[in-house]
Structures are given as C-alpha cells and as structure tokens.
C-alpha cells in the first residue's frame, strides 16, 4: 500500500505522491498514459446491467425513511444560472436552513452550490448554520480559459469564504491524451483551494466512454481531488447510474491502493426520491457504507430536495400532500 498524506501543501508534494503511486521517478505524460491505460477496461453492457440490477432493490418503510433523510443531508442545493441574483441566492439559502416549515425534524442539505460571485451572499445568509458554501470555479462549465484565469477564479471564491470548490477538468486535454496537463491543472487548483475541499468535475457526458470515466476518476484522485463529480449539469447526459457506478468502483479501489478515501458526487438530472435511493443503494453495495455520509457522498441537485420532502411527508402522514405543500426557493 502506498500512503497518501491528507495534509498535502504543495503541488510538488502531489507530484511526488503521484510518482510514488505510479512507481516512476519522473511524472511524464507517458507514465500517466501507461498507468491509466493499464487499468482494467469497463464492459459497457455488463456495467449497465449491474447498475440496472441494483436499481431493482426494494427500499420500503423504515429503510426508505432512513434513505430519504440521508439523501437530504447529502444534497448540494444548487443554483447555477446566468440569471442568479442576490435575492435568488438568499432565498435558496433560506430553503436550506428551513427545508420544510411544516416539519422541523427535516434535515438540512449539506451545502449551497453557487457561482463564485455569489459566495459572499450565501456565506452571509447561512451564517454559522454549518451548511457549507460550494463554488464552481475554473471557467465553469466549459473550463476553456488559461490557467491564471482558472486559478484567479478559484482564489476569488476561496477568499470570499467558499468551503468547497467544484472545478472542471480540461476535457479537451483529456481527450487529446494530454493527461499531464489535466493532472497539473487539478494539482494547482488544489493548491489554490487551501483548506477548501476540491471537487473535480469530469463532465462525463463529454468523456462518453466508461473507460474514460474510470481513467479520469483515477487521474483526478491522483492529482489531489477530494471528491470526483460527474457533471456540470450543463451537458447531457449528466449523472447516470452506470457512470456513478464506475466512479464508486474507482474510489473503492483507490482507497485499497492508497489508504485514502475520496468522495463521489453525481450531479444533474437526479430529480426524484426513487432515483436518489437507487444511488444510495449503489453507494452501499459498490463502495460500501463508509461512503454513506455527506462527507463522502453528495447529490448535485436543485429540484430533488422538494421531491424528497414530499415523500418524507407521505411517510409521516400516509398521504401525498402536493406541490403547494412544499416551498419553492
């Protein structure tokens, strides 16, 4: 087992750790390519069949209640629109603080996810509630900007108080086989994050193949990502069960290899309680129950929260209330 320190401070340290994991004296693109392409392939049919079969688990009564509350606590409640305003972000924060005014026992989501310029607003609105503020950065969603711009974007959000940074990888570089560039960018952004947690968005909808998803997952973990995340939500398909399955296998195997645990965040398109429960089943049966906390698993979502609240009310009262009994943000 190769030990990876969790208190890494410099990009050089990350490179040194990566050399250690790969067992090479110099971290070259060739070394990265050999390592990533040496990972076992993913059979598309088998992977999708496995995800579908986990989707047939029947989660009822007490397990459902537990799953709903667990899922609510894992949400990164998100607004990422050009039309976002201070008012909209404050309203979203208020929703996070009081998800269901009819039931004070409803758990709060893990974080609010916004663009960098809204971090201060969100921070102020959330106060000392313990709900994190996550900011998307690095020329989100395309990632098409120079490195200084990406780093400035990151630092700006961190200085405004972001607890978590959701960066995007350079998919162009990845698809061109320039893994070293992707590695270096992640490592530098990780440094710019300081104490903030780094989620690495791979935009799996643009990587297309499961082999690519597996390689990008390993590359992101190698470069110091605290979380690997499927999507920006701006590209279709966003999160899918099989893509998340491949990522869960990756974090599971990575911990076995290095001893360090990395989180997973599917984002985009997860709208219903039923969907969320399928993801939790997969987390439990693929990665293991160690991942079943907001520290290690998140949902990037906006409308999911209200469906979970609706189902929560149904379990409590035995009757479906309706859209007007849950608050919009």
């Amino acid at each position, binding site marked *: 087992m190769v030990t990876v320190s969790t208190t890494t401070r410099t990009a050089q340290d990350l490179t040194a750790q990566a050399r250690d994991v790969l067992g090479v004296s110099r971290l070259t693109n060739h070394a990265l390519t050999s390592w990533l392409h040496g990972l*076992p*392939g*993913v*059979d598309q*049919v*088998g*992977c999708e*069949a*496995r995800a579908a079969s986990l989707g*047939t*688990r*029947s*989660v*009822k*009564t*007490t*397990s*459902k209640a*537990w*799953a709903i509350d*667990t899922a609510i606590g894992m949400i990164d409640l998100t607004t990422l629109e050009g039309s976002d305003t201070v008012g909209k972000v404050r309203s979203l924060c208020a929703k996070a603080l009081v998800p269901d005014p009819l039931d004070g026992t409803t758990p709060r989501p893990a974080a609010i996810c916004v663009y960098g310029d809204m971090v201060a607003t969100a921070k102020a609105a959330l106060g000392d509630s313990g709900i994190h503020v996550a900011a998307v950065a690095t020329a989100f969603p395309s990632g098409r900007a120079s490195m200084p711009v990406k780093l400035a974007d990151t630092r700006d959000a961190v200085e405004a108080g972001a607890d978590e940074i959701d960066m995007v990888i350079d998919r162009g570089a990845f698809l061109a086989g320039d893994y070293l560039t992707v590695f270096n960018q992640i490592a530098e952004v990780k440094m710019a994050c300081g104490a903030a947690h780094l989620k690495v968005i791979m935009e799996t909808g643009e990587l297309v193949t499961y082999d690519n998803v597996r390689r990008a997952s390993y590359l992101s973990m190698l470069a110091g990502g605290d979380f690997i995340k499927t999507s920006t939500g701006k590209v279709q398909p966003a999160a899918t069960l099989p893509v998340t399955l491949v990522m869960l*296998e990756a974090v599971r195997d990575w911990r076995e290899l290095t001893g360090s645990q990395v989180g997973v965040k599917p984002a985009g398109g997860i709208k219903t309680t039923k969907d969320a429960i399928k993801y*939790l*089943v997969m*987390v*439990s*049966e693929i990665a293991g*129950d*160690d991942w*079943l*906390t907001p520290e290690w698993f998140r949902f990037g979502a906006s409308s999911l929260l209200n469906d979970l609240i609706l189902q929560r009310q149904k379990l409590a009262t035995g009757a479906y209330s309706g859209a007007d009994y849950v608050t919009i943000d």
Partner: protein
Amino acid sequence: MPKFEYAPAPESRAIVTIEKSYGLFIDGAFTRPRATFPTLNPADETVLAEVSQASPEDVDTAVAAARRAYEGVWGRMSGAERGKYLFRIARILQERAREFAVLETLDNGKPIKETRDVDVPVAAAHFFYHAGWADKLEYAGLSASGADVPRPHGVVGQVIPWNFPLLMLAWKIAPALATGNTVVLKPAETTPLSALLFAEVCQQADLPAGVVNIITGDGSTGQALVEHPDVDKIAFTGSTDVGKAIARSIAGTSKKATLELGGKAANIVFDDAPLDQAVEGIVNGIFFNQGQVCCAGSRLLVQENVHDQVVAKLKRRLDTLRVGDPMDKNSDLGAINSRAQLDRITSLVEAGVAEGAERWSPECTLPAKGYWFPPTVLTGVSQTHRVATEEIFGPVLSVLTFRTPQEAVAKANNTAYGLSAGVWTEKGSRILWMADQLKAGVVWANTFNRFDPTSPFGGYKESGYGREGGRHGLEAYVTTAPATLTGAAR
C-alpha cells in the same frame, strides 16, 4: 457509522391461489386427484399442495388424448391458426406474470427477483417467438429446396427438470405446438405447480382439448411416457444419467429425441478482462438460481497472474450477496430445491475439501428451516478433483488457473460435458479464436447466462444432443422425410 439496512420487502403470496390437491390435466380437463404426493416449499419445508402420481394407465390416456388432438385438429390446423393460439398463451402468461412468479418461487425456492425478471418474461418470450414461426415453417430452411415441406412428428413426450419449471416448459411446449405436434409433458416431481397453472392457461386460451396434456409424477411416470409406443418424439432436459437411460430405452425404435443434459462449464477470465464485470459474470454464472443451472459457470478458469486479484474482488462482491427468504424482493439467493439436492451439494463440497480445495463462504445467516446452502468458493482446485469434473448443481464455484490461451482451452474442454463456456477478455480476436476452439454448445463472451428465444441452446458430448430455441430448435420437431414414414400419415 451509518448502515443501509433494507427492510423486509416480501412479495404477497395472496396473488396466487393454490388448490389443496391437483389431478392430471388430460384432454383439456383435470382428472380427480388420485395417489397424491406432496410438493413442498423448499424455503420452509411446508406442504404447498398434493399432486397426483400418474400411473402407466394415465400416461396411456394422456398419449391417446394427444393422438386424437393431433389427428383430429392440431395436425391439420394451418400454421397461422396455431400461431394465434401461441400468441394468446404468450399474452396470458404476461398478464398473469406475477401469479406465475410467486408460484414458481414458492415451489422451487428461487428468489422472486429471478422468477419476476427472468423465468416468467423469458417463458412468455419463447411463446411469442415460436408463435411467429408457426406460419413460416416452409421458409425456415429446414428442408432442402424442392423437398417436402416440414411436417410435425405427431405426439411428443416431454420431461422437464425442477430448476426452471416454467421456462423449461416453455422451451418444450412452444416449439412443439408451433410446428404442429401435440404434447404430453411431465414436470419434475418437486416442482409441478407452475405446469399445472399453465394447464389453466391452456384452458383460458381455448386451446383444443388434448393438444397439451400435463401429467405429474416421479421418475416412473417419466419412464412410462418415454417408453410409450405411441409417442413419436422425446424431448428431455435433466440429468445425464436419466438421459442415457432414455437413449437406451428408445434405441431401435423410430422415436426421435433431443436430450439437454448436464454441464460443467468453464468461465475463463483473461488478465486483460474487464475485471469488475467479469466478477459480476462469475457471480451470475454460478449463483444465479443457486447454481442449479445446467449451463452454470461452475469452473472458474482464471489466468494465474490475476488470480489473487480476481478472487479478492469476488470475495468482496460475495459479501454483499443477500441469501434468504426467496419471497423477499431483495434476496439474491434462495433455497436449494430439495433435501436430496442439498445432500448432494454438501457431500460433493466435502469431497472437494477432502481432496485439498480451500473452502470459503461469506458470512451469512441461513434460515433454520428449509434447504439452504451458502454461496461457496473452492480455491486451489485441480483438474483431477471431483469438484472440477462432476456437476455439483449448487452455489459452489471451483477456481482453477491457467497460464496461456491454449492451456485455458485444453482445461475447459477436458470434461465429459460440453454445454456452455464463458470468455472474458477485451481482445476481440481472442474471443473469436476461443469460441472456435471451445467444445461447448454456447459460448458467452464478456457475459454469462444470457438466454434468448432466438438463440439455439444445446450441448456436445455428455451434455446431450439437439438444439432448443432459434431456427435450429425447430428442426427437432419436424420431419422432412416422405409422408408415408411419419406419424402424420398414420
């Protein structure tokens, strides 16, 4: 530390009505129950119903009914009309799918998730598929151009096993009816209920009386059916020993036969395989239906350089398998079908351990009542061990290693059986080469235990002869010989 516990999610058994006792289904009606014996729920050893032991006289009556139906109506009916009946049966199976799934799980012990997602839908698919053939037999390429059009044999005697009671019934009855034969079918002694419910479906579909006859009983009933002089063709799925006995008993007669017998399939994993999916394929190959599958991937042949990795992944995966109440929708493994089968599995595993294999099972609590065996992995198995050569027919995987593709082929083929095999590699050319070399009727590449009515299924060597399913499967049910030599002319 949080833990995701699934609350019990039992399927309701109220959906299906089980009679206290059943007669035989002969000539479109049920006889009065007589000489009954119990059929048990293997998950808790409770009696589900009493069924009748068909005597040689009953067999005679059933064959006579089938003969009348063949000569009077079914053998003369146009293919298009026969097809309508088959379509009707297929639709009724779908409509009553939940009933069949519950009944099959109760009588067989397999998990409801399998009967719901595999047994019943695939059985319906077989009827749909063969319904389509009924009016197109002339174009199936079964006879040489210019020769006679294919004609049915007449009365077919069919004996099926307990591992897939309804699905094997569909494999047998659908092609027989599509080609214009009539049927006397004997379900297995321990799993007669879904066949008896199918008899109800035949009534519901207004199938002419005598076209399908279902007679229950033990081996002696099967023997009487096979040896009956007015049966034109035998279709049997079951053990190799019984298959050999059938072959002996029909030698020298004009009876045709297809035999689908045992297997000891190799599931071959190369070092470049998609390992996570290969592990799924290994699990599906040997633990699907508690491993009580003739084509089960009971021998894992893994390339030696990835042996430890694959076995570690496999064990981790098996820790998540859920063994228990077959009616719970989250159960992955159910009960073994009978005490006799449980005893056989137990004694073979003990023999394996005595011969030097290392035995491992995940931690699991087995119910106190019923017939249960934990998922089991035997490592350190050699070609010479009994667990590598004999069919165990249970949730027991024997792990062997190989070094080169040639060695993998040699070991895979070094068996008295030849029903199925699996190959796991990302190299397409190797898949084609392996498929060419493996002496197995079915070779799955990067998957296992996939069944489709369009695909022929059957074995080499002691796994039997003849094919079922697909265009090839029709061949066994028709003759292209001159009409005077066939049952049709009688």
